[in-house]
């Protein structure tokens, strides 16, 4: 019985966003997500353990293979990896033995949304107050910010595409609002 329940659940994990029929707005595949907190003295060891550069500046994404770490605060990273990547907790525990760090699984806390297209930045700027010009918000920049009345993590993955991380109960709102905004912008 347990396995049946799990199969149903996995089907739901990959279900599309409610109400989002706009092909520019796409729910990302299920991800493993961690909030990782590292004091200065643990940066190098953590980097070695996960193969990610934790010395990169704040509000930047660093990627290695399938893993990405978004530095959202001076000592805070959001680590994203495929749902199949189960090696992060063990890897960190081994690599940081005796050192301070904090790792909290938030895989299910958030929903990922990919927004792509020539008007992607304008659609976000409809209700997000950041300067999304390429000079001010280059590819690879990632930060928490405000999207109307939702808190989001905004990561620019290319000049015309963004990855948004949203707390799950806010995701339908963000998707519906993006859809409403997008009505006036051609694909």
């Amino acid at each position: 019985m347990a396995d049946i329940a799990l199969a149903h659940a996995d089907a739901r994990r990959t279900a599309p966003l409610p109400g989002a029929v706009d092909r520019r707005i796409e729910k990302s595949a299920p991800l493993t997500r961690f909030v990782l907190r590292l004091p200065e003295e643990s940066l190098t060891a953590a980097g070695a353990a996960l193969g990610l550069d934790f010395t990169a500046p704040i509000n930047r994404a660093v990627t290695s293979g399938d893993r990405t770490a978004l530095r959202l605060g001076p000592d805070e990273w959001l680590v994203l990896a495929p749902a199949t990547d189960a090696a992060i907790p063990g890897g960190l525990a081994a690599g940081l033995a005796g050192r301070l760090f904090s790792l909290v699984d938030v895989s299910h806390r958030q929903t990922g949304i990919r927004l792509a297209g020539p008007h992607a930045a304008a659609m976000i700027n409809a209700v997000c107050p950041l300067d999304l010009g390429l000079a001010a918000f280059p590819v690879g920049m990632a930060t928490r910010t405000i999207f109307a009345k939702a808190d989001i993590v905004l990561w620019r993955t290319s000049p015309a595409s963004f990855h948004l991380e949203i707390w799950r109960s806010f995701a339908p709102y963000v998707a519906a609002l993006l859809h409403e905004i997008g009505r006036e912008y051609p694909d």
Partner: protein
Amino acid sequence: MLLIPCPYCGERPEIEFSYGGEAHVVRAPANATDAEWTAFLYQRSNARGSYAERWRHAHGCGRFFNARRNTVTDFFEQTYKIGEVPA
């Protein structure tokens, strides 16, 4: 909407921040007198002009920091991290 210089992230729009009230109000110790405790809890300088205050970049890096802002013009004079001494 103010433009607030976060010491970690640079200038960011006000709606990413939450306000933390007057800065450098030292929490009175457990053995403080009633009057000292009441002063800590409730009394504020509420200055007209240069004012030391706390902000949190709540929808950004999440950090609390201190600022000096002119409460008449709303222009920031400086912002600095918790624990830093203002210039």
